[in-house]
């Protein structure tokens, strides 16, 4: 498949007033507002375009399976430090970037957008545009590639992306400590402020899990300092992929994004904390307004992440001036409004 294939499809849609649903493996169809429009399957445009381990940069086409990319990086002792969730075997690189979701490594290593160096995009006029590049420092022009990361395909078709990589840590260990939520919050934040190689943290049901990653010597020294019990089967991939038993059950799943030191939120339901407390998963059927209000009160926001039924906007509403800027940006990239309508914001 070639870029022209997508360009022709987009040109035709713009001419006929069609709406398109840009989609990779469809593993994240559940995320965001309900997808609509004719599906444009991006999986045919796949492959690694450039990869040189000593440059710490890879460039891949959108349809490349995420697992395949990660395998190639692993063979070279490297990884995507933001540990993106796959949510299924069919996950693609393009879908990963469009969703903008980061996994357990986010609090220590940074978010997905932090690692995006460049994007090739097909916009609503069917133009192939290149923003950013393959180098780590680049301030020529506005940082459009990072704007596109996490835009849920509403600004155009992500054809290609260049990502900054990191070496896989030499060694790692996961420790378990028993403590209540408030103490876990304080402890996670305190450790994050110390020169310790903590690379992930999670708390649920009285148990705090901490992952250490780095040099063998560094991990050993930190483990001795932190204490607790070594965990044979670490929970991180289950937490990242939502296969951990916590995520089972049909109640709606909320994703609360909060300042890490926000106090424990006494909401009905079960909670799992990540990222030193700045990400809190809530399994609960309570009134959405109550969840949103609780998050907002501590200067955070709540997203209805998974639910059998979604109505209205699953993301927190935007301030009027921000909503205006969003609509103007959408109009700039996609004047005919053909891409992933309403997925990020109703009517956008």
């Amino acid at each position, binding site marked *: 498949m070639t870029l022209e294939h997508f360009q022709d499809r987009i040109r035709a849609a713009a001419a006929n007033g069609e709406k398109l649903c840009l989609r990779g493996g469809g593993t994240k169809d559940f995320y965001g507002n309900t997808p609509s429009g004719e599906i444009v399957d991006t999986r045919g445009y796949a492959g690694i375009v450039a990869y040189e381990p000593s440059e710490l940069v890879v460039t891949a086409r959108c349809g490349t399976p995420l697992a395949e990319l990660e395998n190639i990086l692993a063979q070279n002792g490297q990884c995507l430090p933001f540990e993106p969730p796959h949510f299924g075997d069919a996950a693609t690189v393009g879908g990963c970037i469009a969703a903008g979701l980061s996994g357990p490594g986010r609090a220590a290593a940074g978010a997905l957008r932090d690692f995006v160096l460049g994007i090739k995009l097909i*916009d609503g006029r069917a133009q192939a545009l290149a923003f950013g590049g393959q180098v*780590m*420092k680049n301030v020529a022009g506005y940082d459009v590639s990072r704007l596109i990361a996490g*835009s849920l395909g509403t600004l155009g078709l992500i054809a290609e992306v260049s990502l900054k990589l990191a070496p896989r840590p030499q060694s790692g260990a996961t420790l378990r400590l028993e403590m209540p939520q408030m103490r876990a919050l304080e402890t996670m934040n305190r450790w994050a*402020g110390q020169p310790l*190689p903590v690379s992930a943290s999670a708390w649920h049901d009285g148990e705090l899990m901490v992952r250490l990653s780095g040099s063998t010597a560094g991990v050993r020294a930190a483990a001795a300092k932190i204490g607790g019990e070594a965990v044979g089967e670490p929970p991180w991939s289950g937490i990242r992929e939502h296969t951990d038993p916590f995520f089972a059950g049909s109640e709606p799943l909320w994703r609360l994004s909060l300042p890490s030191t926000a106090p424990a939120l006494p909401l009905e339901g079960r909670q799992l904390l990540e990222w030193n407390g700045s990400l809190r998963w809530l399994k609960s059927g309570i009134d959405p307004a109550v969840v949103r209000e609780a998050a907002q009160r501590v200067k955070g926001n709540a997203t209805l992440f998974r639910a059998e039924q979604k109505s209205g906007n699953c993301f927190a509403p935007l301030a009027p001036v*921000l909503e205006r800027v969003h609509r103007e940006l959408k109009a700039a990239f996609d004047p005919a409004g053909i891409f992933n309508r309403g997925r990020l914001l109703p009517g956008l």
Partner: protein
Amino acid sequence: MGAALPVVKALRAFLPERAILHDEEDTRPYECDGLTAYRQLPMVVALPETEEQVQRILKVCASMGIPVVPRGAGTGLSGGALPPGDGVLLSMAKFMRVLHIDPLARVAVVQPGVRNAVVSELAAPFGLYYAPDPSSQIACTIGGNVSENSGGVHCLKYGLTLHNVLGVRGFTIDGEPLELGGAAPDAPGYDLLALAIGSEGMLMVVTEVTLKLLPKPQCARVIMASFDDVEKAGAAVADVIGAGIVPAGLEMMDRPATHAVEQYVHAGYDLDAAAILLCESDGTAEEVEDEIARMKAILERAGATRMTVSRDEAERLRFWSGRKAAFPAVGRISPDYYCMDGTIPRKRLGEVLNFIAALEKKYGLRCPNVFHAGDGNLHPLILFDANDADQLHRTEQFAAEVLEKCVEVGGTITGEHGVGVEKINQMCVQFRPPELELFRAVKRAFDPSGLLNPGKAVPTLARCAEYGGMRVRGGKLPHPELPRF
């Protein structure tokens, strides 16, 4: 004379007299930033002290159709704060307060006029620091860092301003309040914070910044390694990174640069080496010891002719002092110098350095090089005498060729200094008309009237057509699809 200006009258309604400058003797200090080749007296300088004053200044200017250019400390090297001759230079210098440091949350909330180095000083008692450390950090401000997405010598491991700013607050040109990002991660909607950082003050005026603080590494040591060949030094950098090490800092200086620096700061550099590498490790004592040993072995295999590892903090700082003083040191050996800021894929380093050496001969000008080797950001410094018009002209041609070479090898015209007015022509080489059009549309989304820092960073297509017309290469115009004027 300036007192009679309608905008001055309008500003007097809510600003004290001392916050409005309009006489030439008062406005003269604002005529340029760190790029002194470009100068322009501003019509008026406004020095607000509160967010409300900023908002009212913007509303007044927007309603009168008067351009506004924000300015921090004026240390920028690309003319991003070059004033408008027909507008208001908005100095944020009085926004100097650190509003809040939360050691547990590892966050500092500061006003944009706070100097970069102050943040780390105030965070130090908590064992924390602010990572981006541009060489000008004792003078440059956080607001300016946000505008330019400033880097420093520790970017490879700790990122740029973009990676260390959690949120900003401020106003659009129309005075509408904007809050982007914040202490909670992943704000809903588009990542407008990423767009605002590095936007060269063209999208919004920032009045408050939330910074991420990191735990200060327990210790740090640096290896100073000598090489008898610049390309070997470049290959050694690739070897270190290829071995799975991300050094805290990885800098290269060529012989002309070390010679200039050594006379000035006596950092103890090896003056016989064709190039030296500074290769730093930080972390816990165990981590540093381990990483230094691994790096030494790699550098040795890569052909290092001499290696010294800093024995203590004083020696480490001395090794760095030369690198940080490279620009002023070069300023002492030449009447003027022109600092470039291209970034290239590291593997093309040898090719680009050879290209620069050939240009030195072609233009008859010397050009020492300092290089953020870890992240590919090259700072060639062309030495010239601005009083000699021909030298200035040759310097500009020299610089343009280097930047275009950076684009050709897959890099960029600016890694951390910004486009400003300086590299606006090279934007036409880096981007094609559709991308430039999109940049303009992005600006309109925030600033429909185009009054905020106009004429910077993004060229008009007409300007590119004109520039392309002047620079015909191999019989091909860079933008054959553009109408010519």
